[in-house]
């Protein structure tokens, strides 16, 4: 037998995981209107807008941050194992 053994496998994985964001940061923003269609550079705006925890608790500002994104899934996996 070989010292270095390789064999293949296949798997079905069931995963439960989720993600609930607390804070949102705008890292790039560009406003463009018809009046300045040839002057886009002057309308480029880049800024960072971080919401504090207090902002997030304010329903008026945090609606977009109240969701939970499910990351659960069924995965098909294949690979090979190498003996060490």
């Amino acid at each position: 037998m070989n010292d270095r053994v390789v064999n293949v496998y296949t798997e079905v994985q069931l995963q439960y995981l989720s993600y609930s964001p607390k804070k949102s940061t705008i890292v790039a923003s560009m406003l463009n209107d018809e009046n300045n269609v040839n002057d886009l550079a002057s309308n480029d705006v880049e800024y960072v807008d971080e919401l504090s925890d207090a902002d997030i608790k304010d329903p008026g500002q945090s609606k977009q941050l109240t969701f939970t994104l499910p990351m659960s899934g069924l995965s098909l996996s294949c690979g090979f194992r190498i003996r060490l």
Partner: protein
Amino acid sequence: MMSATVEAQKDYIAPFFSYGFGLGKTDMVIQDEKVSWSSTESTTSYAISNQGFSMGWGIKAGLLYGHQLSEHVGLEFAAEYFRSAKNVTNEQYYEEYSPIPTYNMCLESKNTYFMQAISLTPMIKMSAGYTYWNPYVKCGVIMSLQLLKKEYHGELANRFPGYIPYETLDQVNRFSPRFNVGGIGVFGLNG
């Protein structure tokens, strides 16, 4: 013959690749309203579509280290990178005023969500111990650091006096990275 050798091995590594089919849907608040006021004769409608997506769709790749404690029981540790598929929601918002349409407006927007994550997953493995086509099950805990990005594209059209009739806004949002813990169950077959 190859399987028999593998069952006897104590330590092994396994690079892996998998594709995830998302389960469950986001619980993002969905508004679908249509409001009319007879006094002002205005109508507001709002609709969001394709909201029910899961970030579980995507590809995973990583490396697994395993140690066989006995013929039937082993421990495994997986480190993986996850990259989700892009999930899109579309929103439409309309305000209509009658009989004077001066303040009619229309906002249509598209949000594209995209996630990346790195995870460590310790698992316990129990196998049947067969020589050929050895089935096994694993269960473990996923410790995942996740980063979500959203790309927003909005188009606003209106007839407001003295106002820009049409404009677009593009934004990129990064949401705060989060550390979350989940669970995993696996059924597999050794070739």
